[in-house]
């Protein structure tokens, strides 16, 4: 659990190697989807299609990256599900959001593995990726052919128009939440290493996720010791 380090003497393992690989597969596919989607979203960004080998290739690739994202996201979802269930402290956290934003965590209750903000990112991206998967298939010729063959379902033209509108709206919200997510990881120093090396400093855990730290330490003092 803990290892020695030069500046922080307590180091806590937060993510296994597999969890980190899973996270970065999700992150990379998300960014690729964002770029290829933006190319089709607004003419100013159409030049981004060059990154994917042209317009036809972008149109062809985007849904397949979407499938990769959906599968890998499901992996993260199952992995992190239990730690993201809502609890009472989440409401307190939200009620004291101004202390969160000003970095005064001493006014907050002790937090488990995830705070309410992280749980919000988790659940909203779960909903949004699901929406984008369903509406994305509704915009995708091969996907629709597959749905027709397997379920005998063919959407009406209005349903496909809704799919386009909802897909774009869900993507906008998802990108906004991505920005918040990335910003939080930059703003709260010491967070990146959780997803890079899988280990955080004891001070980081004490400051931001004290309840989780206590549990990890408790686990260390197992009956065997």
């Amino acid at each position: 659990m803990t290892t020695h380090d030069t500046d922080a003497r307590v180091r806590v393992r937060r993510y296994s190697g597999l969890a980190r690989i899973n996270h970065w597969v999700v992150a990379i596919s998300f960014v690729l989807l964002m770029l290829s989607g933006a190319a089709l979203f607004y003419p100013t960004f159409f030049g981004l299609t060059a990154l994917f080998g042209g317009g036809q290739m972008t149109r062809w690739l985007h849904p397949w990256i979407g499938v990769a994202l959906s599968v890998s996201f499901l992996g993260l979802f199952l992995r992190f599900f239990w730690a993201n269930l809502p609890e009472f402290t989440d409401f307190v956290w939200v009620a004291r959001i101004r202390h969160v934003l000003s970095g005064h965590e001493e006014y907050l209750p002790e937090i488990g593995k995830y705070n309410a903000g992280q749980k919000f990112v988790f659940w909203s991206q779960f909903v949004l990726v699901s929406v984008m998967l369903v509406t994305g298939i509704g915009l995708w010729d091969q996907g629709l052919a597959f749905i027709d063959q397997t379920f005998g379902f063919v959407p009406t033209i209005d349903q496909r128009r809704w799919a386009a509108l909802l897909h774009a709206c869900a993507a906008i919200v998802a990108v906004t939440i991505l920005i918040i997510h990335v910003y939080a990881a930059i703003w709260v120093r010491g967070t990146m290493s959780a997803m890079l090396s899988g280990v955080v400093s004891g001070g980081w855990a004490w400051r931001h996720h004290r309840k989780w730290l206590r549990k990890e330490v408790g686990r260390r003092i197992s009956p065997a010791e």
Partner: protein
Amino acid sequence: MATFQPFDVIRKSASVTSTPEPNRATEVVKLIDTSKCIGCKACQSACLEWNDMRETVGTNVGVYDNPHDLTPNMFTLMRFTEWENPKSGNLEWLIRKDGCMHCEDPGCLKACPAPGAIVQYANGIVDFIHENCIGCGYCVKGCPFNIPRISQVDNKAYKCTLCSDRVAVGQQPACAKACPTHCISFGTKAEMVALSDKRITDLKSRGFDKAGLYNPPGVSGTHVMYVLHHADQPSLYAGLPDNPRISPIVEMWKGVSKYAGMAIVGLSAIAGVVHYMLAGPNRVSKEDEENAEKLAGGKS
């Protein structure tokens, strides 16, 4: 026949700054008089021949429509409807030549994300420029008339060109040329509207008191117009839309969602920068590390 040049582009898909509107060239119209159509499909054959397309041989399911729908090869299709007129008790055979209407306000062009894949010329013709098409099928969603079809062969969208290549050299569209009953006419908008007036007067004198011109205002008019004996009920003609317009869902998708979307994403990025400047980084303090050490005791 006059030459309808120049072929200036007045509208272009996915282009933020559209070309400044040049003096509008003479607008062309193809007028289809459903009351004269005998359903011979000469126009369909002429269309395949001029565009060098072939349709695979299908199966007969007991209807006259052949093929059963528009396809990436078949840009025009005779749709047959048998209708019992409740007033006269007559069985009427309504035959409509389906195909792109060349809308003045084209939904396909509005929806298309690929710059220059769909253009509208100064004479009103809406044309698909295949080398720019990415095959996304957005035009299918944008079109109020269910016209474009995506080819499974080259993944590009196809529809009637109004024979823009023939019109450019002063020829009429192939279908109009082939039609044996002069059901299909081609000319300037003024000429065609005048011709339709004559036809409508004639039809009215022969008992079709609801005869009229189909030039739907919801898409700012079309460059393919129908003379209908029952202009009060366009949908009798194999589901010709009564009040076609670009779907409000498409308008939202291609309008407010783009601007609102970019605003929301932009604002969240700005909010991040502002917050960082005000709050500064959230750093772990020395005390935090010491507290963690105390908590972990000697067990680290």
